[in-house]
């Protein structure tokens, strides 16, 4: 009975596993405490960066902006792992600060599978803060043609479809037409 009371007060002694570890536990606790003290000593701050950023806008071929979509930046030094990732803003804008010369790629993908890819040529002059230095940027998705060109392309597409059907009809009907019997065949 008394033995049972002892168990309820110090279960770890009954298990026989914790008691030998008490010094080790204290050492660990001391290390963690000291570590926390060091962490609390770190402060945070901010300052305005003097580095130049590359701002880009991403849009659909319909002219709609690619708002709040996933964006990834690939450095010319590592084309497989993203240098930076995030999301475009409400107006389809995304910017990054390049750290090396060369061709940088920015890929923006939406939830439906649309993808726009921008290639930006960064020069040493740009990195050193010069007025110019960003090469021509190209966006993979071309905008939807507007006005007369849109109408022409749409009409061209419909015309192709109707012509295909006309050709298919002609081919089918010519294939089904019975062979003409020569007039003198009965003679």
């Amino acid at each position: 009975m008394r033995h049972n009371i002892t168990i309820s007060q110090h279960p770890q002694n009954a298990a026989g596993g914790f008691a030998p570890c008490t010094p080790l536990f204290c050492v660990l606790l001391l290390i963690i405490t000291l570590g926390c003290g060091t962490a609390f000593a770190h402060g945070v701050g901010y300052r305005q960066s003097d580095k130049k950023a590359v701002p880009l806008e991403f849009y659909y071929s319909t002219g709609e902006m690619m708002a709040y979509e996933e964006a990834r930046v690939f450095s010319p030094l590592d084309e497989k792992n993203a240098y930076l990732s995030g999301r475009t803003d409400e107006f389809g804008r995304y910017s990054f600060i390049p750290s090396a010369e060369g061709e940088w790629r920015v890929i923006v993908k939406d939830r439906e599978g649309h993808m726009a890819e921008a290639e930006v040529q960064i020069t040493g002059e740009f990195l050193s803060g010069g007025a110019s230095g960003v090469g021509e940027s190209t966006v993979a998705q071309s905008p939807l043609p507007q006005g007369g060109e849109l109408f022409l392309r749409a009409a061209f597409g419909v015309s192709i479809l109707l012509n295909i059907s006309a050709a298919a009809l002609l081919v089918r009907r010519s294939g089904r037409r019975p062979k003409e019997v020569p007039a003198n065949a009965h003679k």
Partner: protein
Amino acid sequence: MHISEGFLSPPLLTAGWAMAGVGLAWGLKKMEPDKIVRVAIASSAFFLASLVNVRIPPGSAHLSLIAPMGLLLGRSAFPAVFTALLLQAVLFQFGGLMVLGVNSVSMGAPALCVYLLFGRAVRSANAKTAAAAAFAAGVTGVLLGIAIVSAWLVLWDRNMLLSAETLFAAHLPVAVVEGIITLCTVSFLRKSFPDVLDGLNVERA
């Protein structure tokens, strides 16, 4: 609803082309000559519908006319969708040539499903039943299309599963709009050109 070029992995693109090939072969098999003109007209409407954008903040979506295609063309809807998507890819850079098989499956398969599910009901003698079936067909066509597009994306990247709900929510208004368009189309055809809908009977026989 188009999946862009360079997005899916080669095995998925291959699977898409294989499925599209089966759908095309099945759709072209025994296509009646008098149906070819109907296929061309429906394909033209599908081709042009993608240029009509429906604004849904923060994005937008375009009409697809999947359900009218399925109800009017039956199994011939697949070749019609394929041809229209090919022209969209070439003329407007919607989707792409490599991903054409995947996109054809994403929009052709729902059209076939709509035809199989609602083809009989829209020819019902009861006008109300036909109208309800037409509306349901329009909604179902869009939602099935989104489900298939989501499935392709999830097969490519499982993280895209999180976006599936957003995709569905964004296309619910489009589904309703397509339901109304399908309802109007079927009602008009029942009154003015009943032979067009009756053509489905000929195909099933």
